[in-house]
């Protein structure tokens, strides 16, 4: 940090982020429950970043719990397993848990009610396995990042081996209000989670693991500290409760005191960030040979009668989950994930996926929907932004259709955390503007790629046409020459014959 930088820091201390009401209790304190097995499960083929998995079962086939339904396809993808035993009823489109309400492919499973596990082989000591083998098993179990990004975990572990990781950062921040699934996991499965962390340390070759937990979860901190006793390589680090502490880069900065360079990753600095839920899933995959077929989901919000954390099989409908906890009133908004970054659900008949950390049934008061007013340039958003952007300038430009102007103001560094919209006194949907602009820019990028591809095709065609013409001409010329030669030979022969005849 240069002298000028220090001077600026003095003038303008970085008070990034916001302190929303966390609404975590009483849901966080309610004991973990399990969702009764629904009759049908709708298991999407794409529950991760990357390409959709390829189904390897047929309609009508009966499957067992944990059986592979669809295999990873391409470099970035993840396997999908059956969440219960039953029959494959259909393979087709269901509505995605996504604000667009668009469909995506899923395997519909009619449960037989036995919930019988497939024989997944015997467990071996993961520490006896070579690290790549651990990563392979994690991949085979279909484990993805459970913090919400759903990046295939095995890839990340492999990346760790390649990038010479020395520190594993375990994200137990859970900074989103309302959500407590990680809190519950750390309280109830601290030993398993710590074991998962140790396996991940082994798989990546990292020397130490830092577990960052927000200090508004004292029970989880206590449980994890107790579980980590005796493992000097694992340090439980309480961090101040402040949104978005759970952002990968911000948690990293909080724990290590350095910033991740823009356009870079934490792996560039020798650190790999994983969610606590992922650690638990890795433990399940390696110790119990169990693929990722269920997760803990926080069901919360003013409209929920009995909020709490629930073990939900992947593919269960939100409708089933809400029926289980009961609704106090008709929710004004149904959200999957946390209130700050979660996505609005088009309706209740969407499946729970691996990345679903929470289902929120918010009342009108909680959702706080007001018509936006004009920006008064109060710059609350500037101070709330954890990245140091100027949301008011970016949104004004996007509203005027000047996307490049917004990019010049750092749109691409925006992490869509929602702090700006949260504090805006004019209720301007800033994040909505940024989502729109990012999507539009991505579409433009795709169009650009298409244009370039088209150009290559045109060039190839021109070359082909030219070659065809040339070859045709060559063939024609050769034929002509052959014909001429044949004629000449014929003429010569006939001449010879005639001369013979004459002689």
């Amino acid at each position, binding site marked *: 940090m240069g002298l000028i930088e220090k001077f600026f820091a003095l003038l303008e201390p970085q008070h990034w982020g916001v302190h929303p009401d966390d609404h975590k209790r009483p849901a966080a304190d309610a004991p973990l429950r399990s969702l009764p097995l629904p009759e049908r499960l709708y298991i999407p083929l794409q529950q991760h970043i990357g390409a959709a998995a390829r189904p390897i079962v047929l309609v009508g086939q009966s499957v067992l719990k944990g059986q592979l339904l669809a295999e990873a396809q391409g470099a970035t993808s993840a396997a999908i397993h059956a969440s219960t035993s039953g029959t494959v009823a259909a393979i087709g489109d269901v509505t995605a848990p996504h604000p667009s309400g668009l469909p995506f492919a899923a395997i519909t499973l009619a449960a037989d009610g036995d919930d019988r596990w497939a024989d997944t082989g015997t467990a071996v000591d993961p520490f006896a396995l070579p690290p790549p083998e651990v990563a392979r098993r994690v991949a085979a179990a279909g484990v993805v990042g459970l913090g919400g990004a759903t990046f295939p975990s095995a890839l990340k572990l492999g990346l760790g081996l390649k990038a010479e990781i020395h520190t594993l950062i375990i994200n137990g921040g859970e900074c989103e209000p309302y959500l407590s699934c990680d809190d519950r996991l750390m309280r109830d499965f601290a030993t398993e989670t710590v074991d998962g962390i140790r396996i991940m340390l082994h798989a990546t070759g990292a020397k130490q693991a830092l577990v960052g937990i927000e200090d508004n979860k004292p029970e989880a901190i206590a449980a994890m500290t107790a579980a980590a006793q005796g493992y000097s390589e694992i340090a439980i680090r309480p961090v101040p409760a402040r949104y978005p502490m759970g952002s990968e880069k911000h948690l990293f900065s909080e724990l290590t005191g350095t910033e991740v360079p823009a356009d870079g990753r934490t792996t560039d600095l020798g650190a790999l960030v994983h969610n606590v839920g992922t650690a638990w899933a890795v433990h399940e995959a390696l110790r119990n040979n169990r693929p990722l077929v269920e997760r803990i989901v926080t069901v919360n919000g003013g409209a929920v009668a009995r909020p709490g954390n629930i073990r939900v099989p992947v593919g269960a409908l939100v409708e089933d989950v809400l029926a289980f906890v009961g609704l106090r009133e008709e929710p004004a908004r149904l959200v999957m994930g946390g209130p700050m970054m979660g996505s609005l659900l088009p309706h209740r008949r969407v499946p729970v996926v691996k990345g679903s950390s929470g289902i929120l049934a918010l009342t009108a008061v909680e959702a706080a929907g007001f018509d936006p007013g004009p920006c008064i340039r109060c710059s609350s958003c500037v101070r709330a932004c954890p990245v140091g952007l100027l949301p008011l300038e970016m949104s004004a430009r996007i509203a005027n259709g000047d996307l490049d102007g917004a990019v010049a103001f750092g749109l691409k560094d925006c992490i869509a955390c929602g702090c700006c919209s949260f504090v805006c006194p004019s209720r301007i949907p800033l994040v909505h503007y940024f989502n729109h602009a990012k999507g539009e820019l991505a579409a433009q990028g795709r169009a650009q790629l298409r244009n370039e*591809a088209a150009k290559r095709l045109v060039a190839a065609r021109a070359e082909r046409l030219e070659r065809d013409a040339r070859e045709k001409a060559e063939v024609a010329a050769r034929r002509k020459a052959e014909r001429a030669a044949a004629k000449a030979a014929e003429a010569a022969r006939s001449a010879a014959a005639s001369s013979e005849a004459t002689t």
Partner: protein
Amino acid sequence: MIAAILSLTLLGAVLGFGLGIAAKKFAVETDARVAEIAALMPGSNCGQCGFPGCAGAAAAIAEGSATVTVCPPGGKALAGALAAKLGISIDLSGVADAGPKIAAIAEEICIGCCRCVKECPTDAIVGAAKQIHAVMREACTGCGNCIDRCPTEAMKMEPVPVTLQHWVWPKPVVTEAEPSWA
């Protein structure tokens, strides 16, 4: 009088001479932008812009007789890139981007005449004589040249279906604020 004429002549000569030297020194080659613009264009020479091929459109854009929004297959992306290249600002929200369209073949009508195959600038249509043809979605630029070639009207342009991966958040609709003393 003589002095005035002389001094003006002298002044003109001196300034003219100076500018002449400067012109030599600061000479700029002809507009290099045409080539740069042509490089940005799709290059499929589909002719939807009304200019003879992409090179013709590039020349027209460079000299300012065509707008940067002239190319329908290029869409907003190209218009934005061109505007950036030319250093001008345009309101892209006004550009009619009715969503990309690509060609599709009604299989029950196609007679396998191969005319469209020959017409396609990007070789996006595959098929052999007396066989039903098909359009490769990824390669089709949506230029529409094949439509008129089809003798049975089996060829038509269809909008590209929106998928989860390609969905874009719509621009927020801002209804005028009605503040209250809440």
